[in-house]
């Protein structure tokens, strides 16, 4: 469950990235946040992902009030309940594909053997069981994003946040990644995806249009 009310986020220098956002996303919902660059959608994602606290307003993620929670509490929330997928994948080149996915569960306190076991399953789900021992750099962009998705979903998060996951991919790979995200089922996890691409947003049942730090349209199919 995601709940935002009157959320304002200001950065140093007086840049106001979010100007009073109120929003509710129910468990299991699939939402696209769409808007041009500079509209505040990435800031939205970092707030939803508890990586930053709002300047004012109330944010509650999975029952945790972000403003009051301690750094370890938020880290715990991210470790167990939130999965991230980034535009530039953020895979570590020094690790195998399997260990990249396993590292996604490092801060949960699971032993390495267990992490690898789960990672294997996750890679299987994204169709990369044949790439387990490869280095990320030897994979195609689409495959790398699949690895990143496997890393995000392996821990079975309650919320999956994706920041332009198709932004660095050609249209075919991008379509494949989108298909994967929708098709994963995600065991009832909430999916929030950020994009500037209306065509990508159109694959989602609910679309939040942003401009200049405000939600200008909450469009549900």
């Amino acid at each position, binding site marked *: 469950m995601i709940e935002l009310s009157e959320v304002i986020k200001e950065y140093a220098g007086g840049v106001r990235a979010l100007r009073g956002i109120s929003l509710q996303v129910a468990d299991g919902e699939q939402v696209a946040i769409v808007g041009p660059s500079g509209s505040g959608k990435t800031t939205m994602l970092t707030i939803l992902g508890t990586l*930053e606290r709002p300047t004012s307003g109330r944010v509650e993620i999975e029952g*945790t009030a972000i403003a009051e929670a301690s*750094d370890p509490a938020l880290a715990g929330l991210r470790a167990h309940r939130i999965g991230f997928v980034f535009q530039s994948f*953020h895979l570590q080149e020094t690790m195998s594909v399997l260990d990249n996915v396993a590292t996604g569960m490092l801060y949960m306190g699971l032993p390495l053997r267990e992490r690898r076991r789960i990672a294997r399953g996750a890679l299987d789900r994204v169709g990369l069981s044949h790439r387990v021992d490869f280095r990320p750099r030897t994979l195609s962009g689409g495959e790398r994003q699949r690895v990143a998705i496997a890393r995000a979903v392996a821990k079975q998060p309650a919320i999956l946040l994706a920041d332009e996951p198709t932004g660095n991919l050609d249209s075919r790979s991008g379509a494949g990644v989108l298909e994967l995200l929708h098709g994963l089922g995600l065991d009832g996890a909430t999916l929030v995806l950020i994009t500037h691409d209306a065509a990508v947003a159109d694959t989602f049942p609910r679309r939040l249009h942003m401009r200049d730090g405000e939600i200008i349209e909450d469009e549900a199919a």
Partner: protein
Amino acid sequence: MTAVASEPRRDDHARLPPHELLGVALQGLATRKLRAALSALGIAIGIGAMVAVVGVSSSAQANLLSEIDQLGTNLLTVAPSQDALGNNASLPNTALAMIAGMRNVSSAAAVYQVSNVNVYRSALIPSEQTGGIGVDATSDNLPAVVGTSLASGHFLGSVASRYPEVVLGAGAAQNLDFHQADGNVMVYIGGHLFTVVGILKPVALDSTLDGQAFISLPIAEKYFREPDTPSEIYVRSGQNAVNGVANLLPATANPQDPSGLSVNRPSNVLEARAAAKGQFTTLLLGLGAVALLVGAIGIANIMVISVLERRGEIGLRRALGATRGHISAQFLAESALLAAIGGVAGLALGAGATDVYAVTKHEPFVIPSYALIAAPACGFVIGALAGLYPAMKAARLSPTEALRA
């Protein structure tokens, strides 16, 4: 931590157990092997220099102490000095016999300085070119008492008490350029020809004897009408009675005026010298510490760069659930580990240098046992200190900034 009702469940904590932290740190180092090796080298050189300094001085010290052990610490000397009234005192003629009769004294030998007499290689040498060689009359047992032996030839014996024979100290022989005492060379002493019958090895316990030439008492009296009183008496006491004997020596040697005699224990000088060998190293240790400081700055520098370069990784780890504490612990562990590896390498370097020194100087190889623990521990602590600032910087880094890239 604020106790809000919406606190995550207990099992939702972010964790990084120590062994995982170690794994993360090792991986961080393995990723940049050359850089890690180079920055560890800085610490290795610093620690190596310090270990070498400590090792070399310990080896030299051990060598000196074992020499002292061989020479024995039970040698005492009695010599006249100024008495309580400021008069020049003297050792009475009876002193040697009295001392030799003491309980716990195993042997004693007296040396009588023959004044105004010098040693020359030939009669043609101008009389003022004395070479600084003094002449002492003494008894046959002097080498045994002072703990030396003959490098060549033999010491004074029964023949020497009837004929002019001389034995040269090691320094005196070197001065006169004698290396063999085969009875074929002679020296002029006070206008008389003396046959050189022996050359002593250096007397480690009292190097003043090295510069002397020794003749027998009867010959000294016969040729030079001297001397009447001993200038110094060497005494070997029982090993466990050294202090007792030392206390009794003045009164035994000269019951009338014991305050005019001074008693010395030559091994004390050597022991002091051995201790000084340890202290001389402070300066070199300081140089090692400077090298270490430079190494530490190198590590701090490399860690700061590393933090900047790895903003993406830091952001990712934060997104994956690392607390600020986990991030700073990771960087702290990396720099501490790096410097600890440097410390171990430095220990090996220092031990190697000490070994080379010990082998070339024929001294025992000694590395103090504390160095085995101190070297890596020192590196660890230095690394942790050097990594403190970069680690804090890493923890403060905003994760979003890095992840947007």
